[in-house]
């Protein structure tokens, strides 16, 4: 139903085509392959172009031969509140983006969750707003549900995080310094404990390298 063969023939020169042309091609690619695959073509389109295309897709689904039902499965926009903070969730197939509407600190970060072939990863900087990371994590599980097969988390020191490090990094290192046991230290983190309650309690892999800790969890 989607004319992806034609799209594939078009080369990189399409980035030089007028905006409308790019829009059509970008949207068709998103529709055909899903937004998750789209990032593999970065450099070819800017994320602004992708976003414009997706906006257009929401406003004019008929242009792309999509029914409302099909569209609902591709792009969703949900308005939410957390205390005083108002935000929107944009859901593009394998990607969720949180956009704050009234908190300038939060909107400096592209807060996102992505699924890569069933592996979930987050990139949150909640600017020290207590409970917001947890809220967004819960929303991720509501949206992706059983499609999440495993979870990859990266903790690090970073001057841009409140207190200069992510909470997971702080909790991991406190426990690691005390016990000298990497697995025990991972299990001491709030992140692990939250994920374990959701059924992802098996530590599949981890790596500690300098100021960065990567952990992969899977279902029991």
């Amino acid at each position, binding site marked *: 139903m989607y004319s992806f063969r034609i799209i594939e023939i078009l080369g990189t020169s399409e980035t030089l085509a007028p905006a409308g042309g790019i829009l059509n091609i970008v949207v068709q690619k998103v529709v055909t392959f899903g937004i998750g695959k789209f*990032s*593999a073509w*970065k*450099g070819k389109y*800017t*994320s*602004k172009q992708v976003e414009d295309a997706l906006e257009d897709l929401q406003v004019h689904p008929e242009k792309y031969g999509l029914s409302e039902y099909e569209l609902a499965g591709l792009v969703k926009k949900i308005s939410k509140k957390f205390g005083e903070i108002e935000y929107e969730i944009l859901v593009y197939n394998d990607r969720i983006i949180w956009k704050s509407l009234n908190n300038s600190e939060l909107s*400096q*970060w*592209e807060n996102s969750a*992505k699924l*890569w072939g069933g*592996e979930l*990863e987050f*990139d949150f*900087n909640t600017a020290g707003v207590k409970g917001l990371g947890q809220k967004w994590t819960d929303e991720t599980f509501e949206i992706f549900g059983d499609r999440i097969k495993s979870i*990859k988390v*990266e903790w*690090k020191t970073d*001057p*841009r995080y409140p207190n200069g490090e992510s909470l997971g990094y702080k909790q991991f290192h406190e426990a690691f310094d005390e016990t000298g*046991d*990497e*697995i025990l230290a991972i299990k001491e983190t709030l992140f692990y404990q939250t994920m374990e309650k959701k059924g992802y309690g098996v*530590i599949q*892999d*981890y*790596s*500690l*390298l*300098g100021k*960065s800790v990567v952990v992969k969890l899977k279902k029991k």
Partner: protein
Amino acid sequence: MKILRILNTLNEIVISTNLDNNFNIYSKLKIAPKLKEVIKQRIYSEKNFEIDVEKLQILIPALNQRIEELLKHSDFNPFKEELRERFPEQYGNEPFVYEGITYYLYNKGREFYIDSLIYNTLFFKELLEEHVKLNKPLKYVYKEIE
């Protein structure tokens, strides 16, 4: 889980991960196949071992070469102009100057996997340089953890 820990010159654990991840850092290096094989055997030997300074001196230029390759990789977005314009704080804070060119790294997420490889290779290279400077071998400690 079978793991290897690598210590810095102050005997602090700075790298800790499974055996495959430990070998991965060497697997793409352009070094003599014999040397690569020796390192591989030691990594999978399930014993503590050291790499002497003489070998570290061979590895450092190979790590530099690997960084150069990664900087040219087609999946690497070297300057992140558009991302930095939209989210300057997020994407503009890991500048990496190499031979007079400023690249911007973002060491997080699968989308930026080349950035993470560059970061890891750079960290490892600096660790080796620190050992060569103090004329100390690189120490690996084997452990099984549950």
